[in-house]
């Protein structure tokens, strides 16, 4: 049975409300619960066995996934991600979707999460080499920093590595510098053009792109930090 849910306050302060029927479950990343009815029961635990948990850890997620259930009567639980930003729902119907590091929020029964080693091309944003893969049939919720725009890729699309939130597994991709340039201008765009590495998607499928990343905010705040005194 599909989850009854509502995503509120999009896109800046998105909040996910899930209404569980008696006997239903929903799984969420630790610390995501904001409030819930007293009829809801919470159980923390490793899911997908030890290997699955360790894999998730490499994909930038926690070892633990919390299980929320409504054993006696239905009730509501609200989830909020860490960063201020958007939440998206994706209905899995036997396909697969890849999530960027830290993007996972919650899922229903029937969705399986695993870490997928992407090799050198997986180094999105210079972070992990591992993406989180969701497959099966059910509801998946993911979150981002800033708003999220959906792109329906028909042939190809280029996205700055730091802005990719999720993409359907029907798409192929490579990590590269901005294409269509000679070698000299390529180097110039990379070092001076500020665009760094981009992901080039091929084929057909959807890509979700966030409109902000945290790094510019950190750079903005850095000069306001006090200076360390010489001791």
């Amino acid at each position, binding site marked *: 049975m599909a989850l009854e849910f509502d995503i509120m306050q999009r896109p800046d302060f998105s909040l996910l409300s899930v209404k569980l029927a008696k006997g239903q479950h929903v799984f969420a990343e630790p610390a995501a619960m904001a409030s819930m009815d007293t009829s809801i029961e919470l159980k923390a635990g490793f899911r997908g066995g030890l290997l699955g948990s360790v894999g998730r850890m490499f994909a930038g997620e926690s070892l633990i996934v919390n299980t929320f259930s409504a054993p006696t009567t239905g009730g509501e639980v609200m989830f909020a991600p860490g960063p201020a930003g958007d939440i998206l729902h994706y209905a899995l119907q036997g396909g697969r979707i890849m999530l960027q590091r830290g993007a996972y929020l919650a899922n229903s029964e029937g969705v399986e999460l695993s870490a997928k080693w992407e090799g050198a091309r997986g180094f999105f944003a210079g972070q992990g080499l591992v993406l989180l893969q969701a497959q099966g049939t059910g509801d998946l919720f993911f979150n981002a920093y800033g708003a999220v725009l959906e792109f329906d890729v028909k042939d190809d*699309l280029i996205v700055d590595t730091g802005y990719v939130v999720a993409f359907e597994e029907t798409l192929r991709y490579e990590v590269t510098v901005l294409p269509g340039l000679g070698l000299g201008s390529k180097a110039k765009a990379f070092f001076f*053009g500020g665009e760094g590495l981009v992901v080039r998607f091929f084929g057909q499928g959807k890509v979700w792109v966030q409109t902000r990343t945290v790094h510019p905010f950190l750079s*903005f705040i850095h000069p306001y930090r006090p200076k360390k005194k010489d001791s």
Partner: protein
Amino acid sequence: MQAEIQARPSASVAKLTLDTGEMVVCEVGSMIAMSTGFHVATTARQKGSSGLWAGVKRMMSGENFFLNQFTAQRPQQTLLIGPGVAGDVIHHQLHAGSLIVQGSSWLASGPGVTIDATFAGLGKALFSGESVFWVKCTGHGDVFLNSFGAIYEVEVDGTHIVDTGHIVAFEDTLDFRVGKLGDSWIGSFLSGEGLVCHFSGQGKLYCQSHNPPSFGQLLGPMLKPRPA
């Protein structure tokens, strides 16, 4: 070029659609996503403007030395651009005259717009706490600006006062001078307003709802010291 501003005001981005041969000049690092039919060139100068010196002046105005030029090689190419920190993006149609833009608020402009750093006047700049140069957009076409917080518009007809940290851009039909608020300097500083800009004349003024240094000074002292 078609433009659509999305996710206003705090996570705003500009989604531009360009046809074959159309070009847009963007702030370095502002590209979020794009179709593959663009030719991208990183340059220190804009077509028709004077080389290196333009780049140096731009750098002094708080913008990057380099610019990225995106030229569509195929029809209906999409380009998504946005600023780094939380805030608004607006689309200003420049018909004639100039728009004076505060240092870091310029995001992108069309090929018919010349962007040049302008000398704000040393006294004005020093006292306003802003950079010595402002970005001056002249010509005909689209200009995209970004802000810290939301952007609001003021149609000045007569006089108007704006805190120096809240200015995004203004039409150059307006005159401005930096000064105190009210009659006395002491009162002006005690009120926490410090320096303000007195605008006079007729023209459009864009202001931002939040002042970046105010937010920085609030958070900074709570963070670990940075290496000297």
